[in-house]
């Protein structure tokens, strides 16, 4: 097989390719046209592009073929779509680019987008966001649902897109660059609490898959594997990928938030003074 076969999409989706192109185009245009002072540095820009390209890579290259016919590759695909890719995108802080575009959209469009904002705020309620983040993983790994999703092309695309969009929502909630002392963004304590909270059910699910004696996901058995591999090994590695890296990313997220909280310690006095007023 030539390099082109590896880079070209296995299952071409015009909507997917178009979405990625638009995201990169809007980001690139925004970065180039915004005032020097607001512009994200090279490191942040590269982090953003890396996050986007990782997600694109697992959706529209040969990687997608292996994801469809090997359980452990599929788990790797979701690790990138739901965790690593959105993690990098949110961490790169594309807020200046979003502000740049927000200032340029017409008031009429802003009005039309109001319901979207309403839904967004609903989904970003801490408990809803956590339940959705873990719930989606459990939902798509529920054996009968997983079987159908791997058999139906439409369900497969819905599965991957829902994982990506939910990943973006969740990690944006966690890495929201606005300080909770100055804005209505979520407090650092709550962010760390959420990260610890979502890690536990993921570890349980991963452990269940790893320690299952029988075949939990027989769709890969029924539909043929990309290459002959012991089914038990495939399931074991897939379980480990569900278990360990997401837990590590929760800890990494907690460390990043902790560092930010320590940096901001004593920097803003708005909260502490208001507490003093109420307690005295």
């Amino acid at each position: 097989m030539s390099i082109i076969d590896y880079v070209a999409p296995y299952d071409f989706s015009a909507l997917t390719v178009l979405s990625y192109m638009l995201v990169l185009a809007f980001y690139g245009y925004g970065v180039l046209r915004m005032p020097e002072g607001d512009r994200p540095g090279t490191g942040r820009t590269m982090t953003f592009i890396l996050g986007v390209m990782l997600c694109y890579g697992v959706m529209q290259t040969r990687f997608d073929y292996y994801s469809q016919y090997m359980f452990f590759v599929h788990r790797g695909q979701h690790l990138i779509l739901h965790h690593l890719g959105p993690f990098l995108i949110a961490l790169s802080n594309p807020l200046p680019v979003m502000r740049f575009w927000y200032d340029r959209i017409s008031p009429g469009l802003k009005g039309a987008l109001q319901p979207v904002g309403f839904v967004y705020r609903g989904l970003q309620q801490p408990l809803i966001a956590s339940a959705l983040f873990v719930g989606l993983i459990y939902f798509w790994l529920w054996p009968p649902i997983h079987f159908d999703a791997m058999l139906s092309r439409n369900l497969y695309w819905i599965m991957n897109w829902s994982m990506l969009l939910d990943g973006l929502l969740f990690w944006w909630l966690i890495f929201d660059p606005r300080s909770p002392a100055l804005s209505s963004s979520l407090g650092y304590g709550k962010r760390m609490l959420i990260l610890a909270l979502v890690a536990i059910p993921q570890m349980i699910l991963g452990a269940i898959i790893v320690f299952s004696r029988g075949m939990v996901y027989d769709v890969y058995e029924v539909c043929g594997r990309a290459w002959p591999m012991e089914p038990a090994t495939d399931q074991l590695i897939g379980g480990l990928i569900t278990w360990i890296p997401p837990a590590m990313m929760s800890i990494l997220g907690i460390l990043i938030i902790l560092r930010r909280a320590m940096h901001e310690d004593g920097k803003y006095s708005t909260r502490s003074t208001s507490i003093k007023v109420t307690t005295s």
Partner: protein
Amino acid sequence: MNSHFPANFRSWLNLPLILIATIVLSGCLGEDSSWHGKDIQGLMPELAFELTGTSGETVTASDLDGQIRLLFFGFTSCPDVCPTTLQKLSQAIKAMPPELQSQTQTLFVSVDPQRDTPERLARYVDFFDKRIVGLTGNEPELRELAKRYRTTFGYDEPDADGNYAVSHSSAVYVFDRDGKARLLLRPDLSTDEIRQDLIALARENS
């Protein structure tokens, strides 16, 4: 602050509950059928292919319209899965009422075109049942068909004698008279369970 916390908390609690209920319900609905095989209605596209038959002629899905069709991927050098499955399918069909037998057609698609010539394929399928249609094509055609039904196949490295194993789907795809994908027969089904499913499907819209 404290006074409206419980109300908020309750509404937050409801959401995961609704989510769980949805998951459980959809799980149950998926299993809610009298079929022994897996119901795949609406999950897969209808039957379509253009392949080469055992006499070298072109065979398309529409040539076999109006019949219940059982699609199975394999190769003639297959040591276990293919002979067992073909044996089971032909036994199940022979145990059906005679008038329904003639309306049920097994399609055996060889994904090993390098070794499986039309002649070799003809001898192989005739061994199990004269009525089985053997089909093959070039690799891109076969890949396209496999992709359409969300399956794949792969070749192992050949040994010293040039023999190699081929990995392929172990399930049988069942299409109704209109060519709609209806059932997926897993290899663990018994001959009798397959027979019951095929009879139910044949009687459904005859």
